[in-house]
């Protein structure tokens, strides 16, 4: 008597279950690719793309929005980059606040909120970070993605074992996807190098005088609450330091190391011949000592483990039960940008840039960044 094989019901059911899980998890992954809306204010003169400066980026995931604010009177040109690292939300939110609020009466301000657009489309593996966080505004919640420090590997893969960046520095392989290690870029290189090259082209073609790269870092990182400046910008950074301290913001200066290559504060100065400053604030959600990652950790910045670390003298910034909320980090960035613009005009009057509508740092500290975001359309 021949034995018939039983119908594989369990295998089919499990396969169907797997396909269902793929459908829903795939949608969650894909949601991270949808950009959060930005609503430029009335001061916007032109909205461009980075591919307008380097066509090699057209129709790639590296292309990104460039917002130009031009005054009636001639003055200097300032480039402000947010989202170089998409997991440093204060830099991105600060750039969005600028795009949605400022008007320029003299000179020009160019803002690139999502400098590494691809890095916003995924999150760091094994970090359990939330995909997004939201800020309350007068017209309801506005959401923002929390991306990764690196370009999405779907857009640029594989990483080399060792990466020799365009400035000749040897780095670990994954740094090939770190925009702030890829300057001055390569027109025929990796996608991230092309983005860096596009930004260098923007600097060259728009005759930028001062470049600001807005970042965040972990409270245990030594270069924190700091201005990292190219040596050509030492006087500018010093004046800014005094202005910020007069406003009550504790800030320190760090000279850009000459042997640390590929970073904005080094190569913008060396290759772009502009003044270059990188701004850092302390973000608990970015650090290694944090507890459970969550959207509230990003926005409220409270973490009991960092409180303990501060008590034991392990941090480079004060950290108490009130944490370091996003509104305070954004306010610090805005205060630094305002002080840098004022100092540029003081040092080189012909390069003065006059900006109106810049959210007051004190107001952002009191009411939160959401109070200065434009209503949803």
């Amino acid at each position, binding site marked *: 008597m021949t034995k018939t094989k039983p119908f594989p019901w369990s295998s089919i059911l499990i396969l169907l279950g797997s396909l269902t*899980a793929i459908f829903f998890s*795939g949608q969650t992954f894909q949601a991270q690719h949808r950009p959060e809306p930005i609503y430029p204010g009335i001061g916007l003169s032109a909205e461009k793309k980075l591919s307008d400066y380097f066509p090699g980026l057209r129709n790639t995931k590296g292309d990104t929005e460039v917002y130009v604010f031009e005054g009636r009177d001639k003055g200097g040109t300032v480039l402000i980059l947010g989202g170089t690292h998409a997991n440093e939300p204060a830099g991105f939110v600060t750039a969005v606040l600028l795009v949605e609020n400022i008007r320029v009466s003299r000179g020009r301000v160019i803002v690139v909120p999502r400098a590494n657009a691809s890095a916003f489309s995924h999150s760091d593996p094994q970090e359990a970070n939330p995909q997004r966080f939201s800020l309350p505004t007068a017209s309801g919640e506005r959401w923002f993605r929390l991306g990764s420090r690196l370009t999405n590997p779907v857009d640029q893969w594989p990483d080399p074992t060792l990466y020799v960046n365009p400035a000749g520095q040897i780095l670990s392989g994954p740094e090939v996807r770190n925009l702030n290690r890829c300057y001055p870029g390569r027109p025929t290189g990796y996608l991230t190098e092309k983005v860096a090259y596009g930004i260098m082209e923007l600097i060259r073609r728009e005759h930028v005088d001062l470049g600001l790269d807005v970042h965040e870092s972990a409270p245990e990182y030594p270069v924190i609450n700091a201005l990292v400046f190219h040596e050509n910008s030492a006087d500018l950074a010093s004046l800014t330091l005094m202005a910020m301290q007069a406003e009550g913001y504790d800030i320190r200066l760090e000279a850009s190391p000459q042997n640390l290559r590929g970073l904005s504060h080094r190569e913008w100065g060396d290759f772009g011949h502009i003044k270059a400053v990188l701004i850092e604030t302390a973000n608990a959600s970015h650090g290694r000592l944090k507890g459970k990652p969550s959207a509230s950790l990003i926005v409220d910045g409270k973490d009991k483990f960092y409180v303990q670390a501060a008590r034991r003298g392990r941090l480079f910034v004060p950290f108490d039960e009130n944490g370091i909320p996003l509104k305070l980090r954004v306010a610090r960035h805005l205060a630094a940008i305002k002080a840098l613009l004022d100092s540029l005009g003081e040092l080189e009057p012909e390069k003065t840039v006059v900006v109106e509508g810049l959210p007051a740092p004190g107001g952002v500290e009191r009411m939160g960044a959401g109070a200065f975001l434009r209503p949803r359309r």
Partner: protein
Amino acid sequence: MRLVYQIIVLYLTACLTVYLFREKKVASQVGAGLILIMFLLRLLLVK
């Protein structure tokens, strides 16, 4: 390079699917099904 990657993942996905239908223990089938989720997401380059 991407095509090579996808061919490798496709081969492994096919092996897993065959294993899922050959294996008699339900616990092993569930294990294969869970791993299949990750392989198919990789195959479709969903990240």
